[in-house]
């Protein structure tokens, strides 16, 4: 009997309390989401660290790719202007070696620079 009365009282209190539940205003959700979106937009995105191996291959590809392109253009020009004999002449071979050496030296300098930067970090 006593338990019944207590349960009934509990039920009454619960019903009364539920009627007092506040309702959030319509624009509150918009305000919250807008602030979150704004903060997200203003937060600087962390840049992913570049992979070393990717950088190494990229550098090699760029430098030696350019070298082969220059050599191909030289060979094509020499062939069209001077003929096959000139391609086998020591003068032309020396020019090719010189161009290849310049690009190789440039690549070595790039690697050395990368090594020094890495060491400084």
């Amino acid at each position, binding site marked *: 009997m006593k338990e019944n009365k207590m349960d009934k009282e509990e039920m009454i209190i619960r019903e009364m309390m539920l009627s007092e539940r506040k309702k*959030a205003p319509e624009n509150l959700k918009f305000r919250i989401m807008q602030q979150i979106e704004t903060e997200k937009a203003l937060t600087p995105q962390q840049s992913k660290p570049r992979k070393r191996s990717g950088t190494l291959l990229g550098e090699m590809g760029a430098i030696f790719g350019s070298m082969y392109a220059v050599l191909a253009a030289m060979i094509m020009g020499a062939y069209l202007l001077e003929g096959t004999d000139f391609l086998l002449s020591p003068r032309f071979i020396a020019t090719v070696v010189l161009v290849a050496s310049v690009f190789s030296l440039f690549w070595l300098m790039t690697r050395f620079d990368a090594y020094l930067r890495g060491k400084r970090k």
Partner: protein
Amino acid sequence: MNENQRVQQVLSGNTSAFAYFVDAYQDMAITIAYRICGNMQDAEDVVQESYVKAYRNMHSFRAESKFSTWLYRIVYNTAITHSKTRMWTGIQETEIENAFDLGENRMEIDLDEMDRKAVVSDLLQKMPQGDALLLTLYYMEDNPVKEIAQITGLNEPNVKVKLFRARKLFKEILEENYRLEDVRYS
């Protein structure tokens, strides 16, 4: 989709997934904030700040507790800081006496003219803030004592005792100020 999956979505950068949590819990969040701050304007600011804090600290949410419990804890702390309120100062006899004194004039008021909402609002205003908050958490959300303890930072036996006293005080103020039958059947 359960809440943990939604949390993972938010963590992976999907901001719009957070809207679910705003929709689901903003009413209770504002009710808690209102109980502590005492006015809707501050309660709205507190809830907005709390949700932004929750978003920023989403990575620290552990699925050991419910998301709602974690969020309400943030709302509770933010509201306390915002209003500089001391919640658990203990019930003083003078406070209770004052509560009765304030209601004495209303003894004559015919409750048929007042809706239940206004009665409860009036009663909760007369109660100490902490007690009103405990009743809110216990009855509105069906939060078990354990979760109320997590939200308020009190220990479980303390919550039980305070809840018992709050319930008793609520009934006393109700009976002292209104005819209970009118409240029941209005």
